């Protein structure tokens, strides 16, 4: 039998990613994710590197923008691409609970 990620683990990552899966997809991804997660385990075989990290190959640091106002969108443009809007607002089904962030 092929090795699989547990259903629970798969559904956990699907939930983190906010992706609803069909039963068929669950079956398939349990196998496929397991393979990819085995691949990334190989990182633990790498030896000899130092702690310094490379986030991206930036040519320079401290790139700041002056605090000067630029062109803004018309509210009509803001709602133009939104699937649902009410007046100038973008609309979503009711949200329960509060933001976790700021």
């Amino acid at each position, binding site marked *: 039998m092929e090795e699989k990620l547990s259903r629970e683990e798969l559904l956990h990552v699907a939930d*983190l990613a906010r992706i609803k899966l069909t039963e068929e997809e669950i079956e398939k991804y349990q196998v496929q994710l397991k393979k990819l997660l085995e691949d990334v385990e190989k990182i633990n075989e790498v030896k000899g590197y130092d702690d310094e990290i490379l986030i991206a190959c930036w040519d320079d640091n401290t790139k700041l923008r002056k605090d000067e106002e630029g*062109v803004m969108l018309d509210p009509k443009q803001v709602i133009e691409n939104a699937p649902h809007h009410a007046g100038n*607002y973008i609309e979503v*089904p*009711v949200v329960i609970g509060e933001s976790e962030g*700021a």
Partner: protein
Amino acid sequence: MTNYIPTVGVEVHVELKTKTKIFSDARNGYGQMANSLTNVVDLGYPGTLPTLNEEVIMLAIRAATILNCNIQRVMHFDRKNYFYPDIPKNFQITQNDTPIGYDGYVEITKENGETKKIFIEEMHIEEDTCKSAHRKDKTLLDFNRAGVPLIEIVTKPCMTSGEEVKLYLEKLRELLSFGDISDCKIEEGSMRADVNVSIRKNERDPLGVKAEIKNIGSISNAKLGVEKEIERQAKLYDNGETFKPQTRRFDDKIGDTVLMRIKETGNDYRYFPEPDIPFVILTDEMIEEAKKGIPMLPDERRRIYVEKGVLEANANKLVQNRTISDFFNTLLEEKTDFKIASNMLLGDISAYLNREEKELNETTLTKERFLELVKFYQEGTITSKNLKEMLDMILESDKTIADIMKEQGIENITDDSEIRNVIKDIIQKNPESVSDFKNGHDRAIKFLMGQVMKETKGKANPRLANDILLEELKS
């Protein structure tokens, strides 16, 4: 009820006073038409990238300095990943690994005069979320606030009462608004506080179960919320009950906290370094430049005012109005009577400002004209009655004080001989008062001065008249 030791920590978000947003050049503004202050970056459009507003870094350095924090010299940003409709990219750009400030403190003074340091664990820079309005079955999103720069200031769990929380928040508000870092208007959401409350029996016990109170609309509610929460937890423990870590909110209407939700095992924010923003390396020059922008802070203002002879209570009052205090600061290098100056500003002038709903800098009062005014008052050339009569002209026209006095017909008699003649006449007419005076009744002076003023229709320079009266009585 058993005595418990409360432990309280506070997280404060303040919006920075910049012209534009943190990661885009759309305007940072409040109270505008919905979705009128955005661009594609704020909406998280595909392909857009953040830029970094220089002023945000400068204000954050300033804040870190004012809050006595160490400053992180090499910073990067991180992404905090979670799904919520108020966060356009479904991640927030924040600083998780390298907060710009850490290990700071502010000092509060309690009612009994005791001071206490409130320790600041860290302060970091991040972006604000959009505003959502919840309707019956819909939520409406306005992205004007999305991307407004914030600093979040996190204290150590070092407070023990609602009163301390109140003093801390007041102090913070005072420092950040005087530092020109934020408006700190709680009612407009430019300052928002969340508090974490737990209680335990003994200092040596581990910290108790935590409840977080969000949605606090005012500093007094923060105090009340903490007190109510301490009480609630104590009752539960007293009854042998326990509770789960939870998020509560302060409900204005009932004046108490209510449960929002039980906290699930740690949120999984999947932080990782933001690849779109290179390191920010703060040089000595940048830090110096940022510090240069720090205006004189309240404690120092109070100290100097008192040194200059202002009553302590008045020094406090002066600092409570930023524009008045800034105006007062322009006088500090001058030779003037600061006591009179402060009385005038806090008395008649403040009354005028309140009545007209104006700030001092919206009047025509200049430093020069104010100094002139104080001088005349000090000399006794104008009386407090005169001041009241002249006030509108002083604050609404550009004329010199001397000219206003002339126009208003306020010409005080400063001619020595003229006053002396009047006084001699009054002394002759009131022998019993004279003998009262000689018998040590000071009241007689008041009566006689009253007569002088009556005779001169209030135009006699009071100080001069007083001096002459004493001279004549003693002769």
